[in-house]
Each structure stands twice: as C-alpha cells, then as structure tokens.
C-alpha cells in the first residue's frame, strides 16, 4: 500500500457535484500527474462535508486546509502553490477558517464547533467507494463482535438501553421495534431500510448513503442477526443516483469480502441484501406503502395493525428502520448503550442530523446532540440570518411539521418538545424564515405539496387537503372571510383524526401551527386585505413615494408592461395599479428607494 504525504479530499456529495466538484477532482488528478506528484499526493472523493453553502469544498491534509467555493480554475493555484511549494492559498480558504493571518482547524469553525458527529462521522472523511477506508475507521468491527460474541437478545437489549428512537420522524423506540420483530412468528423475516427521503429540503439520508454507505450494510446485517432475518431491502428513491450507485458499489465490495453472503465471520449467520428503487412518491416513505412498493404493488398505505413487525414484506415479519437510525447502530454496539444515552435529553438520546435551509447563512447538514436549542442551531451553527433581517420562525419536520415562532427559539430540540409546540422532528428538515416570509404563503406551499402527494386512497386526505388549499388560496387572494378561518381549523382537525396514514394525519400541521402562532397575519389577509410581509401578490400595490422620486425614469424603463408614466426630469412618476403585474422590477431598480409596496 502506498503512503502519500498529502491527501486531497474532494467533496463528492450531490450538492458539490452539482457545482462541478467532479471536474475539480479531474483537474487535480491531471495537474498532479503533470507536476509528477502522483506518488506524493492522493486525491480522495468523499461524501458530504455538510457545509453545502460553501461548496464545492476541498480539504488538503495533513494541514487540514479547508478550501471553499472553488472553481475549476482555482485548482491550478492550489497545485502550484500548496502542493508543490507548500504555501497554503489563503485567498481560497473558507473565510471563517482563516483569521488574523492564521489558519484555524476546521473543528474550530463555528459551523462544526457545536456539532457532534455520530451518524455522519465518516462523511467527508473517507472515500465511500473504498471498503478498506471504512474498515480503517472501525468498520464492520461491530458486526464481527455481534456475530462472534453476542446473542441476538443481547444485541436488542443494547439497542433498547441506548434509548435510540426512530430518526425517520415518528420517534418510536428502535429497540422495541427490534424486539417485536424478533418475537414475531415466521419462517422467513426481513429487514428493510427506508431511504425514501421525501421532505422538501431534507437530505441527511442521501448524505449518509453517499458518504458512508457501508454503515448501512453493517447495521442492517446486525439488525438481521438480532431479529432473525437473512435478507435485507433498501428502498431508495431513483432521484438519488449517486447514493444508489455508491450503495451498490458498497454491497458488491461487502459481498466480495464475505461481509455479506454465507457464513459471515465463520459463523452460521448468512445475510444478503438488495436495493429497490422507488419512483419518488412521497407517500412511499410511509411504511406500509413502502412495503407495497417493494412487493411491486402500487405504493399505497394500508391500515395498521397489523404492523410490519408482524406482517410486512410478502406478509412476513419485517423490521423497517430509517437510514439515520441504522447509521447510529454500529457506534452504539462499539461504544456501548451508556455512551449513547449519555448524549441528549431525558427522553431523546443521541444526536440528530438536520438539513438547514431557507433564510440562513450556513445552508447545509449539521449533526447536534438532542437538547441543543433552536437558537444554538440557527445562530451558532447556522451562522444566523443573512442581510441583517429578523428571525421570524423555523419550520421543522417538512410538510408534516409546523412553524415554531421566535418566542420559542430557546426550546431545546427533542421529539417531545417539538410535538408540544405543534411541530415535529420529522426526518430533520429545518427551514428558517425571516420577516419577508408570509406565513399564509408558507402554509400554502406545504399544503400544495401534500395535495400533490396524497395517494388518494382515503377521503379525508384526498379531498380534505384539497379543500383546505382552496381556502388558503382564497385568503391569499384577499377573498377570505372570517368563517374560512374557523372552517380551516375544523377541517384540519378532522383530517388529522380521520386520515389513514401519517401523510394525512400530519398534513394539516403547517396550517394549524401557523394559525396558532400567526393568527394576526391570517386576520390581516382576511379583514384588512393586506399581506404584512408583502408576499401575496393579489394584496400588494406598488406606489411611488412622491417626495423621494427624483424623476429619473429608471423605473419606467424597467417596467415590462409599461404601466409607469411620467416625464424624465419634469414630473414625478406614477404607477397604474390596474395594469401593474407586481413583478417588483421597479422597486429593485429605483436607486432612491422611492417605490414602496403594501
């Protein structure tokens, strides 16, 4: 095995790949060859580093230089300066990692400082396509110990003691689920992994599969041993091509090495697994719909019970866990239940990965201990709100969750606190909103998503969400009546109570939570026909502030429908609100802030 003096880690996560990191990787290889450094420097393609905002990201070791927002052209400078001459190209470093002329370790950068990486521990560190790198970081050790040293019930006990709860949203105790499946009667059992990540803006499961696919294989084999299954399915959406590809490579490598297959580690335990691709229907993240889809049927939920632990894939007892849940398992085995349960709060143990997006400086993936407050996540890790705007609310849990207003920003994040606030953990999307977001519009956005994704099997979800959306549309257009607000609430509660599956039961949450915390905004839309945030177009009027207008005519030149009249240098300009299409072009163009909307 060759030893290199320098490792160049290029992020190969979807975020960085879409901003050309693969071309950057190619360019590095090309220039390293050209400078005859191929025996000294190694280029490694890794999974997501999490700080997607700063992508494409490259880290050069042993110095740990954290280069951000690179372009292909920048590679020349890094090779000729850093690799050949040993001078770090400070201009290209992530700006927070370079202070007062000194490079800081990335672990001291605000974004990483408060994080604790368990599920993401190998993401951005190893090359996900090389099994030896996973093994070097204790990979498959947990599986080896479990198979040679532990009884299935001991494994389940460790998972129970750890306090791990399902990371896919509901937060059901993982150990109990394992226990139910182990105790269920059946000649054949299955383990399955839910990688049908569908919440808009959530991408933690994709990042684990792209950055550390072997951890899922190892954890599923452990689960298979614990519950008595010899076959695993990973249900993953076809929209994640990089994740699918790397997971397949990992499965093939594990088979070649005998880490999957017959008599693993010389024991009588045999385990095999395969990937099932989903076509990206949101409802297939629901466990019974997912099972139907794996079986080749239409992805629709069925009533529970029976739960999958009793009657799952092909009617056999099936253990179904989410990607992030599995990613915790090998570490729990290796470091013990006590270690895991020492992290987090009383009822929510361990860490949680969040995908931070919206009006936030550090868009990306973060893993923080349960019990971290929303404020710490948003300001310390997320770097706060851009452009000096004011924080208004944070939406957690995607279309199933709700909006948490600024008043509750010091709430420690755990399953129960979020539910108490009318939201939920969900898979871990966290969308930050500032003063420019209209809460009626936000509720409409999420409801629009659930209306599209409702499978249509049960009436409350199929018709109820559609009617709710119509009412929200009415309110946003300024045609809402006070009765609409009460009807919305009644309908929301009915849908929650009467829907068949989690999709419908949680679909009204974005509406209910915004009604609860931001009733004044709804009332402004209904009573005053105004949108306080200036988002709902039908309620907006643009006008020229006559005192401020300098008669320059720039607004009239920019207007795409010629609805602004006036004479350059002579008269104040005027907007014809009848013709105005509210495109905002004049407001952005005016150099004197003489145009207002409201």
């Amino acid at each position, binding site marked *: 095995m060759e030893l290199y003096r320098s490792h160049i880690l290029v992020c190969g996560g979807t975020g960085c790949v879409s901003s050309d990191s693969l071309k950057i990787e190619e360019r590095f290889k090309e220039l390293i060859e050209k400078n005859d450094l191929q025996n*000294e420097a190694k280029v490694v393609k890794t999974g997501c580093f999490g700080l997607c905002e700063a992508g494409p990201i490259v880290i050069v070791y042993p110095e740990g230089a954290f280069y951000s927002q690179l372009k292909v052209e920048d590679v020349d400078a890094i090779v000729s300066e850093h690799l*050949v001459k040993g001078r770090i190209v400070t201009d290209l470093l992530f700006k927070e990692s370079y202070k007062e002329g000194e490079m800081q370790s990335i672990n001291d950068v605000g974004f990483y400082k408060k994080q604790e990486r368990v599920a993401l521990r190998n993401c951005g560190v190893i090359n996900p396509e090389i099994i030896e790198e996973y093994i070097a970081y204790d990979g498959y*050790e947990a599986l080896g110990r479990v198979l040679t040293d532990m009884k299935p019930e001991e494994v389940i006990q460790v998972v129970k003691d750890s306090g791990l709860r399902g990371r896919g949203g509901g937060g059901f105790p993982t150990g109990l689920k394992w226990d139910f499946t182990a105790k269920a009667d059946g000649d054949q059992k299955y383990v399955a992994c839910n990688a049908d990540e569908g919440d808009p803006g959530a991408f933690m499961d994709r990042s684990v599969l792209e950055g550390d696919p072997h951890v899922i294989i190892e954890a599923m084999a452990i689960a298979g041993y614990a519950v008595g299954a010899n076959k695993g399915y990973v249900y993953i959406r076809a929209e994640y091509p990089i994740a699918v590809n790397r997971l397949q490579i990992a499965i093939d490598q594990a088979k070649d090495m005998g880490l999957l297959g017959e008599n693993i*580690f010389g024991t009588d335990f045999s385990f095999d697994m395969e990937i099932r691709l989903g076509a990206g229907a949101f409802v297939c993240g629901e466990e019974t719909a997912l099972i139907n889809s794996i079986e080749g049927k239409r992805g629709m939920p069925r009533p529970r019970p029976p739960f999958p632990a009793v009657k799952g894939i092909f009617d056999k007892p099936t253990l179904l866990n989410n990607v992030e849940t599995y990613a915790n398992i090998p570490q729990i085995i290796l470091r013990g239940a006590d270690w895991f349960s020492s992290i987090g709060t009383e009822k929510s143990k361990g860490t949680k990965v969040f995908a931070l997006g919206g009006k936030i400086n550090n868009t990306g993936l973060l893993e923080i201990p349960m019990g971290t407050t929303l404020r710490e996540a948003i300001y310390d890790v997320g770097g706060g709100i851009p452009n000096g705007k004011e924080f208004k609310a944070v939406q957690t849990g995607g279309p199933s969750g709700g909006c948490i207003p600024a008043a509750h920003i010091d709430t420690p994040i755990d399953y129960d606190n979020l539910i108490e606030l009318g939201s939920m953990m969900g898979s871990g999307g966290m969308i930050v909103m500032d003063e420019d977001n209209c809460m009626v519009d936000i509720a409409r956005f999420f409801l629009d998503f659930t209306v599209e994704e409702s499978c249509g099997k049960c009436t409350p979800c199929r018709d109820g969400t559609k009617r709710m959306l119509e009412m929200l549309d009415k309110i946003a257009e300024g045609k809402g009546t006070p009765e609409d607000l009460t009807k919305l609430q009644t309908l929301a509660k009915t849908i929650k109570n009467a829907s068949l599956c989690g999709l419908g039961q949680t679909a009204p949450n974005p509406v209910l939570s915004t009604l609860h915390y931001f009733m004044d905004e709804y009332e402004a839309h209904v009573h005053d026909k105004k949108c306080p945030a200036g988002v709902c177009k039908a309620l907006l009027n643009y006008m020229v502030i006559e005192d401020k207008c300098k008669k320059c005519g720039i607004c009239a030149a920019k207007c795409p429908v010629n609805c602004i009249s006036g004479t350059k240098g002579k008269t104040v300009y005027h907007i014809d609100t009848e013709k105005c299409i509210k495109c905002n072009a004049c407001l952005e163009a005016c150099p004197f802030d003489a145009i207002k909307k409201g």
Partner: protein
Amino acid sequence: MKSLEELRKLRKDSLDQVDMRRSGKGTRIVVGMATCGISAGARPVMMSLVEEVKKRNLQDVTVTQTGCIGACRLEPMFEVYRTGEEKVTYVHMDAEKAKKVIAEHIVNGQVVSEYTIGAYEK
C-alpha cells in the same frame, strides 16, 4: 471474511491510508519545499522521511511541507515539532541523513545535534 482477526489485520493495514486525516497532535516534520528547497534536493529528503515513517509504522507522525523560511543557503532543511518540546531545525539534509533523524530523534528522542542549525552556525 472468516474471522474477526482477519478484519482487524485488514484494519491495521488500512489505517495507513487514512491516518493523516485524523486530528492527532503528535510529531510534525515540516520540510522546506519552496523553489530553493526543491532545487537543493528537498524532494528526495521528503520521500525518504515518508518512507521511513511508513516502514517503521510510526503513529501520529505527519510529514508535511512549507515554503521558504529565508535560509536558502542551508537547504534542504526540515523542522521537527513535538508537543512540549522546542522546535528542532535540521539543515543540509539528504535522504540518508533524514533516515538517521527518524531513527535517533523521532524514535529514540535523541536530537541529532551535528545536523542542527545550531551546530552549523557555530
């Protein structure tokens, strides 16, 4: 994979591949690799250091490079940083001398005084 021992052996062999990326403190050997250093022969010195570290399976030792430190007449040179110890600067190095430094200084903790900048300047 037939046994846990087999896995552990593979892990030991694989560790070299990734060792550099762990944030171990340990020893840092920094080789001057500016134009002056390279033209004076710093590259074979560095390769010799890297090979020796690997051959002896030294943990927590990183070999890295830096630019010109201003004493170009003394190149090739490198500096050894260890936590809790003064920095040691070795000058006029070659591949053989580098091996000796690894053996005596890095492994046995005895600074090779005759090669240091202090000895040269006297």
